[in-house]
């Protein structure tokens, strides 16, 4: 059984917000709701600035599912955490429980009335019929049923944001770390433009044979 997951490589994310834009466009997400957002730490500090793209992480033991008073959440056989908007009462418990701030609430009327919760669906729609009008209106496009991965990850220009089966993502990320090294090897002129002396690349990079 696949476990659908996201991973964001902080060394690659350039805070372009392409993932945020792709998500909003793909699902016609209303104004004020951001299913995905980019968080930047150490903003402006040279060498220490890091950005990551954050949305629902489709937790294996999701706290939102545990606290929902109407049990509107469910998990697909591939580990995607989804919810039924017809049951959601917009109480906001899931927002308080979520460590990533993923649940979003549209302003449903005057005086700040909170609407039904909206969150990242891993582009898997909801409990309505796949790719139906009702599903699109409530949850957005169902790319997974089309055999496609989430739009945010597929649009990512630097491939910082990866989506798919957790095992596949682990392999990709592991290979990256092995090739690019760590610590001082990560950042600098040599990383960007190549190293003049192959022997100076360090034992980690030398451990993987590279094609010429």
């Amino acid at each position, binding site marked *: 059984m696949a476990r659908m997951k996201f991973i964001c490589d902080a060394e690659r994310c350039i805070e372009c917000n392409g993932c945020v834009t792709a998500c909003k466009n793909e699902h016609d997400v209303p104004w004020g709701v951001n299913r995905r957002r980019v968080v930047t730490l150490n903003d402006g500090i040279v060498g220490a600035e890091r950005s990551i793209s954050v949305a629902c992480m489709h937790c294996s033991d999701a706290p939102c599912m545990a606290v929902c008073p109407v049990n509107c959440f469910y998990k697909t056989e591939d580990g995607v955490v989804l*919810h039924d908007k017809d049951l959601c009462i917009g109480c906001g418990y899931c927002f308080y429980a979520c460590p990533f701030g993923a649940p979003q609430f549209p302003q449903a009327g005057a005086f700040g009335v909170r609407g039904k919760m909206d969150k990242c669906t891993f582009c898997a729609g909801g*409990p309505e019929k796949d790719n139906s009008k009702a599903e699109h209106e409530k949850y957005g496009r169902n790319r997974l049923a089309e055999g496609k*991965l989430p739009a945010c990850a597929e649009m990512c220009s630097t491939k910082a944001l990866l989506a798919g089966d957790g095992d596949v*993502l682990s*392999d990709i990320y592991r*290979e990256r770390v092995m090739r690019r090294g760590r610590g001082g090897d990560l950042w600098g002129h040599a990383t960007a433009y190549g190293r003049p002396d192959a022997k100076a690349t360090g034992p980690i990079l030398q451990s993987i044979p590279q094609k010429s």
Partner: protein
Amino acid sequence: MMKLLILLTGLVVLAGCGEQPQTITAKPGTSAAKADDVPYGEGKSFADRNAWQLQLRARADNQNEYKRVN
């Protein structure tokens, strides 16, 4: 007057019978959401789970540019 009082008392008591349950029916640990259909099968883009998973696997692998370039 007494008849009216008995009638009113009866109406008040009967009003309780028409009360709708106010409690939620959700049970802890079980989802109350509608059943979601699987993303493959008859009438879908992919006939079976295996074909669907192979497609997603190929897409996921394609995110590895080391494989794409080399």
